[in-house]
């Protein structure tokens, strides 16, 4: 399978409404890369995917697959495999005929077709299901058929539109692992649309975070999680303490409700910026440190392996995630002292 690069250049999709559905999106995907489009519903991620697939036309901009500009090419000549959210299997065709459909469209002979369908079924662990009909399969099995159908013709690119959205949690995690294995084995370029941040975090080489038709940030899962470039990304991904502070002369911040806080990056004096401190980076302390106010605990959520403490640090809303055993001695409405490393306070590079 030849992996190809995908280049989206200044692509805009407008329906004539006030806000563009997709607004000047630019993104380069490397050959063989697994990139997730992550964002809330209506953020433009699926529309962008549909434009790559050819089911919608961009109002402006250019999309290249490898060295081809694919804008004028109809979907049936793009050689892109797509897995739909509802699978979109052909209900009147058997599993083998569903998977063989793209091969049939390419005029492939019966013998080679059967062999390739067999290999694709093998890949998704569905050997022996050739003559079943989609209605006779479970959701997870239908999902695998859709996947096999999208990769059997060795497309230049595979698009997945929230493919695991309809599956229950265990099956979803299982399919995530399967998908990653298939991606590794085939080395094909994959674009994965999801609104599930865990899914994006665990599977992607890189994540593009969409919001209101724009890409807020593109980066590795680690970058997106620890070094968000906007407060939207900081709050959308993971659990967060998003503080607001004004830069001091000494490079620290005066944070509302808490007081003096040092960040991983130096402050610009007088500039107000959001600060991100992940709740799991905060530790309980025996006594107050750095003149910080105590934390008032208002609620605790027990996850078993860890406990989330929700309350106020000074007057700022604050969340702390601590390992289960450490939280034992704390009462629900008590006070505790907290501490953290300055390097874990990420300064979001935007003006609040």
């Amino acid at each position, binding site marked *: 399978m030849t992996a190809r690069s995908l280049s989206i250049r200044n692509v805009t999709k407008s329906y004539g409404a006030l806000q563009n559905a997709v607004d000047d999106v630019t993104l380069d995907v490397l050959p063989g890369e697994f990139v997730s489009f992550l964002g809330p519903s209506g953020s433009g991620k699926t529309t962008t995917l549909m434009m790559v697939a*050819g089911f919608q036309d961009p109002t402006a901009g250019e999309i290249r697959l490898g060295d081809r500009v694919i804008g004028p090419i109809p*979907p049936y000549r793009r050689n892109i495999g*797509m897995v739909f959210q509802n699978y*979109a299997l052909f209900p009147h065709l058997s599993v083998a005929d569903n998977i063989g*459909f793209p091969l049939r469209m390419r005029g492939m002979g019966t013998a080679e077709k059967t062999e390739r369908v067999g290999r694709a079924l093998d890949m998704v662990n569905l050997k022996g299901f050739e003559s079943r009909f989609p209605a006779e399969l479970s959701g997870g099995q239908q999902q695998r058929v859709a996947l096999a159908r999208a990769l059997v013709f060795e497309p230049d690119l595979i698009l997945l539109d929230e493919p695991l959205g309809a599956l229950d949690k265990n099956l979803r995690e299982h399919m995530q692992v399967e998908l990653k294995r298939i991606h590794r084995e085939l080395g094909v370029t994959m674009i994965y649309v999801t609104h599930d941040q865990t899914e994006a975090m665990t599977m992607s080489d890189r994540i593009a975070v969409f919001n209101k038709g724009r890409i807020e940030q593109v980066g590795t899962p680690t970058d997106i999680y620890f070094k968000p470039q906007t407060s939207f990304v900081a709050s959308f991904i993971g659990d967060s303490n998003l503080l607001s502070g004004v830069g001091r002369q000494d490079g620290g911040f005066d944070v509302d409700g808490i007081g003096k806080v040092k960040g991983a990056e130096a402050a610009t004096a007088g500039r107000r910026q959001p600060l991100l401190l992940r709740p799991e980076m905060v530790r309980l302390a025996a006594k107050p440190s750095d003149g910080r106010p105590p934390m008032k605990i208002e609620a605790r959520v027990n996850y078993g392996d860890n406990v989330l403490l929700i309350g106020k640090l000074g007057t700022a809303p604050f969340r702390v995630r601590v390992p289960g055993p450490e939280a034992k001695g704390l009462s629900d409405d008590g006070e505790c002292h907290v501490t953290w490393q300055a390097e874990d306070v990420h300064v979001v590079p935007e003006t609040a």
Partner: protein
Amino acid sequence: MSWQIRTLAVAIAIFLAAPLFIVIPMSFSTAQSLSFPPPGYSLRNYANFFSDPTWTQPLINSVIIGIGTSVLTMLLVVPASFAVIRNEFRGRSALRLLLMLPMIVPTIVMALGYYIYFGDLGLVQSYPGVILAHTCIAIPISFLILTAALKGFDRSVEQAAMGLGATPLTTFRLVTFPMLRPAFLVAALFAFISSFDEAVISLFISGRDKATLPRQMFNSFRQEADPTISAAASFLFLLVLTGIVISRVYAWLRARQRGAAVAGAFGDKT
């Protein structure tokens, strides 16, 4: 459901079906005229119905006109349904209303119109004339069935086909049409039935040569009270019943095969 409502429902059902309980036994009667209850039973009326040219010719006419109507209706309604459901255009709701109009306009008014208009065109007493008029009558019901099925049709399946390399035409041939086949079948069947038991327009324009079965029944009843008419009526009923049963069974089989938007969508309308 309380017993009062059940009783009422059964009473209404009996009232609606009552004519059948008279006509069907009468069709097996030995009596020389229309009388009830039958003095004895035989198949004479049926033998007569299938051998006497005064009855066989109208039966053949009705079948030819019914098939013609069915074909012409589908040729018109299929593109119209796709156009109305899948596109936004100016005058869409006006077009929809226009297609439903034959259901609203009194048939007698249409019949009179055809009588005058087709007379000038030389279409009275001809197959094309009756087929054209019956197509008009059949359009609303076929249109309703097809648009309901199309509305419930998930277009991502078509997108999937195209993404996998099928041109729009191939997509229609291999995906859209096979998936909608039950709806197409039912629409065609209902077009045939609405032509087959149409009487008013046939009375006005089919004439002696191209008389349809309902027209012949009317004539026969008025002129001689030939008991063969009860066999004709029973046959007509049996044919319509078969049509409905076939469509239901087909829909049911499809629904069972694929849990299914298509069958469900027209199940409501039929």
